């Protein structure tokens, strides 16, 4: 069985109301990087909520790691469009937040405080935030906040990372920097990743597979394999093969928006 599996899933936020996504089925293998793209209103964020267990499906089944999702799980890490760091905590304390919630870290908290702190410091160093551990979120730039937020999503070593347009609010150069960061993090220690985005270049650059959704209600209209070789340098974005993928996806979405 695939690591993440959707079986004919529909979700209506109000019972009997309009469905945000309708009859969605797909599978994601363990340690795959999958992107979900589509115009606004196609239920991308709804998909995130279903996988992470924040919302139950109205119809159909969602499985993560061979178990039906009935509520939030500790094996999922999430990063959102806004960094959502807690302003009263330092960067280090923010990153360590999941360790205070998720087992087995939670019960080790008292005894292994030093180990946990070392883990967080190492991860922060890995994303280029060494020296910012004791700064408060408002002292960091938007890009740095988002790096810290990614650290927080990864600190408890989740088997599934959900990325909900985490680079959407950043400027173009910072965004590309963070693409490379995400790529390196994933390549050094693979985990299953689902990236929701409306940036087609981002999707093609990072993912093995791109799922295209149509708006109102959200349905899957294409499932495209991105067979570009890894490791992928940033220059890849200017190659013909890359442009072809982006162009094909753009056409799909153009159709979806018109219909």
């Amino acid at each position, binding site marked *: 069985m695939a690591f993440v599996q959707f079986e004919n899933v529909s979700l209506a936020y109000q019972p009997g109301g309009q469905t945000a996504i309708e009859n969605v089925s797909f599978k994601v293998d363990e340690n795959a990087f999958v992107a979900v793209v589509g115009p606004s209103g196609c239920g991308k964020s709804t998909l995130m909520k279903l996988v992470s267990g924040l919302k139950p499906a109205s119809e159909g089944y969602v499985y993560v790691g061979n178990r039906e999702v009935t509520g939030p799980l500790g094996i999922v890490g999430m990063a959102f469009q806004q960094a*959502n760091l*807690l302003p*009263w905590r330092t960067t280090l304390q923010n990153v360590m*937040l*999941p360790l205070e*919630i998720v087992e087995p870290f939670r019960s080790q908290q008292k005894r292994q405080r030093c180990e946990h702190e070392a883990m967080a410091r190492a991860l922060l160093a890995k994303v280029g935030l060494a020296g910012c551990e004791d700064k408060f979120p408002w002292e960091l730039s938007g890009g740095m906040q988002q790096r810290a937020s990614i650290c927080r999503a990864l600190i408890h070593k989740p088997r599934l990372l*959900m990325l909900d347009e985490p680079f959407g609010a950043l400027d173009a150069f910072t965004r590309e920097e963070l693409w490379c960061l995400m790529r390196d993090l994933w390549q050094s220690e693979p985990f299953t990743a689902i990236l929701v985005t409306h940036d087609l270049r981002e999707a093609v650059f990072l993912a093995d597979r791109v799922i295209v959704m149509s708006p109102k209600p959200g349905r899957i209209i294409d499932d495209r394999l991105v067979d570009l070789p890894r490791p992928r340098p940033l220059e890849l974005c200017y190659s013909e093969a890359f442009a072809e993928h982006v162009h094909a996806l753009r056409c799909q979405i153009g159709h979806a928006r018109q219909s």
Partner: protein
Amino acid sequence: MPPSLIIRAAPVLLLLALLGVWHLACTALAIPDFLLPSPMAVWHAGVDAFDPIMMHAQQTLLTTLGGFALAVIVGLLLGIAVGISPLIYRACYPLMVGFNSIPKVAFVPVLVVWFGIGTIPAIITAFLISFFPIVVNVATGLSTLEPELEDVLRSLGASRFDILRKVAIPRALPYFFASLKVSITLAFVGSVIAETVASNLGIGYLMMSASSTMNMALVFAGLAVIGAMGVVMYAFFSQAEQHFTAWAHRGTHAP
């Protein structure tokens, strides 16, 4: 004088200016002392009756702080309950608003019947008048929690108690401390009201007995002492607010 010094000295300068106008008005219009004593007369009355004033001020301060402490405990608990439960909110709010609209001075005679004259009615009045802002602020702080912040924790499988402890309460702290500043001044109002109506101790009682002998200078001295205590307590909680919730006041000159 450099501008920063003027800003820092501004409260004192304004106070001195108002005292000057007051003094001038009293001498120029030849207002008799039993109607409006001049600042100097108030000062002398205060110095003459220094010991009794201190004794009564201590009583007022202690009853105020007692009532205020009760208000903090009850306000926090009730505020948390109202803030996290829509049901409790629906049930409690109309009652609390209605209760808060009752003039507390009208309630003092009831307290006297129940507890007799003295300290206890003053403590209870201070509590009754000062707990409402704490409830409202704590409840507002909790119920305006951004769903995004909540989702960060929920997606990790955090329980409602975890969310309350890790996110909702820390985020509501600035609201809580802001309400303490309002509450402490209200608590003084409550205890002094109760003292004027039903006590034989406290600044309120001192003022009542002074006014019954037409000693207006002493009445005003009592008012000044209450005001001074209020300012000191306000400043104390303002400092506490700065200390505990500095993250919420970055780069601003908080009131």
